[in-house]
């Protein structure tokens, strides 16, 4: 049911996420784009699970759990950076420059 459109939507969302990560400089927007990619993958998992059985759904729960943990750590890092630099613009964050 609706396999083609679901996969197409998933592909579009994923590309949007990739484009966002490559083009945007705001750390929070970047972060949201990563979430977008994760959820695009979730969508294709769910869509394909209708053909190939429930393991796709199970995978989605793993992704969600990892995404939640990643969000907690990532946001904490962003807050930490903001406290140091008063900015979340990635252009200003270049501590590792040689």
């Amino acid at each position, binding site marked *: *049911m609706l396999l083609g459109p679901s996969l197409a939507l998933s592909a579009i969302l994923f590309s949007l996420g990739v484009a966002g990560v490559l083009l945007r400089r705001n750390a929070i927007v970047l972060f949201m784009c990563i979430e977008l990619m994760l959820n695009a993958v979730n969508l294709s998992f769910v869509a394909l*699970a*209708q053909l190939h*059985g*429930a393991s796709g759904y199970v995978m989605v729960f793993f992704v969600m759990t990892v995404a939640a943990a990643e969000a907690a750590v990532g946001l904490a890092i962003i807050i930490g950076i903001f406290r140091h630099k008063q900015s979340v613009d990635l252009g200003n964050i270049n501590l590792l420059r040689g």
Partner: protein
Amino acid sequence: MTSLVWLTVALPLAGFLVNGTLALRRPAAKDLVSFVGVGVLVGAFAVALSVCVQLWLHPPHAPIIVNLWRWLPVGALQLDFAFQVDQLSAVMLLVITGVGSLIHLFSVGYMKSDPGYARYFSYLNLFVVFMLVLVLGSSFPVMFIGWEGVGLCSYLLIGFWFSDKVNADAGKKAFIVNRIGDFGFMIAMFMIWHHLGTLTFTGMVERAPAVFSLGSGVVTAITLFLFLGCAGKSAQIPLYTWLPDAMAGPTPVSALIHAATMVTAGVYLVARTNVLFALAPLSSTVVAGIGALTALFAATIGLRQYDIKKVLAYSTVSQLGFMFVAVGTGAYTAGVFHLVAHAFFKALLFLGAGSVIYAMHEAYHATHSHADAQDMRNMGGLRQHLPVTFWLMLIATLAIAGIPPFAGFFSKDEILAAAYARGESIPIFYVFYGMSVIAALLTSFYMARLMAMTFLGENRTGEQERPHLHDAPLVMTGPLVVLGIFSALGGLLNLPRFLGGGGAMEHWLEPVTAPAARYFRLEMPHGSTEFYLIGAAVAIGVVGLVAGWWFTSRRRTLPASESPEDTGLARVLYRKYYVDEIYDAILVRPLLWLSRVVLWKGVDQGAVDGAAVNGTAKVSRGLGWLGSRLQTGQVGIYVVLFLVGVLWILQTVAG
């Protein structure tokens, strides 16, 4: 016609999308926002009304399931996203869309000068969407979407003025406390799936009696976990602390979410799963006991609050306690009846308080004063300045105090009578009855105090502010008048038999409560006992009102800035028995300590940063140092080592 019920959800959803877009693009288009925001609710109400009329004309024997799409096809779990239209969800449907429409209309006036107007209406529309999903859902997971969704909207609207940290914190508190309850809901859901193999309500009613024996451990555990969810959402002990703080949101939000609809979701859940609670008499007793305790406890705190909204908040917690006494007693109709009556009179009280605050705020705004517009000590004598609000709030006060013939009298009397009747088979219900009676007495006491401090006596607002005090515009008083009519006449919904009514709601809800009635039969008192109970209930209401009025007007109240601090018991009540402080000391601070000292300083800085990150660096540096010791730079030693090595290799190869 009933299949159109999805429109009641779709209309507010469309309203949310339109208003949400406007909030981002054209926040100044307030006329369009109000038209859409209120229009979709009125539309939803019209659809709900036609659905209910249909149901009234052709009462179905089984719930009508409106299947929208297949949602979760996973192995044995084949779940549809479906709505269930039956007598119980019809009642909730009317209350939510009806009272919701009135409160949306009131908000047009109350929020008119707020810069976040469009954002406010988009959240409010979204709330109605989720609330309707909650009551219409035909299975636990669909209901859970609504359950979580209303929690989200509640969070967004409590913290609506989020630039003030207090408001943002109140939103967070509501959200976090509700997580504890949701944990219970989910565990219960898993257990139901495990034992019944179904998650739909119709399947539950069908299979539960065959699977669970009366009073078995499993069904008791399931219902207790479910009740944990209810205690979170409906603000019962020990999870009630978020509701009074939730008053940080705009007042119409308090009326809609934190009085009339969302907080009653727990009562609805118990009524919906009545067959499980009937099979677990122990759980039902716990529900009634917690309800009675909460009703009494919250009512005592309400006695000494000065913030007009805080009094109403504790009153809501207390009235929700009454509803749980009803559903715990097995009087599901009485619980739902009180839910409906409470939605009318408490929404009226909150909106009335809203117009008082609105008037006070305008007056203080005009003179650039920073006095507290919600503190009742700054009010007094408002009857002359806000006559419409006064008379309407008086109706609501009489209703909540249980004075006949107003709505609250019939519903509260039925709850008290039911608790008394249950005492015959389970004696501890006599204790619950006694607690509820005292709570009812305190209810009319604090309501009389609220009315006397706000509207009677001499005005304490201030000389310059006084001329600015006046009733709110028609868009705000209009909804109040409608709610006033319903608060006065709501009792007709379930007029008892001795007054010529047939217990209309009792009869109406019978198909829903029938499964429970088989195991948890309740014989309501008749004849002289019934009249004694009614007489006692009315006497309590009158005594409380007179005492509250007398104790408040006997002493001169001073404006907030001149009032001395409370002492003794009054102080303990004013500080809400220090429960927030106790929770802070035994839960919040140990958790912060654990995060700060153990997890941050110990695990993160010590183990991760110290051992793992800097540790590996130190180890490789140490190994490097060790290796560098071997290099002496003396060619002679290199030759000796080379020789030893060659000999060793030759020896292994040859040997």
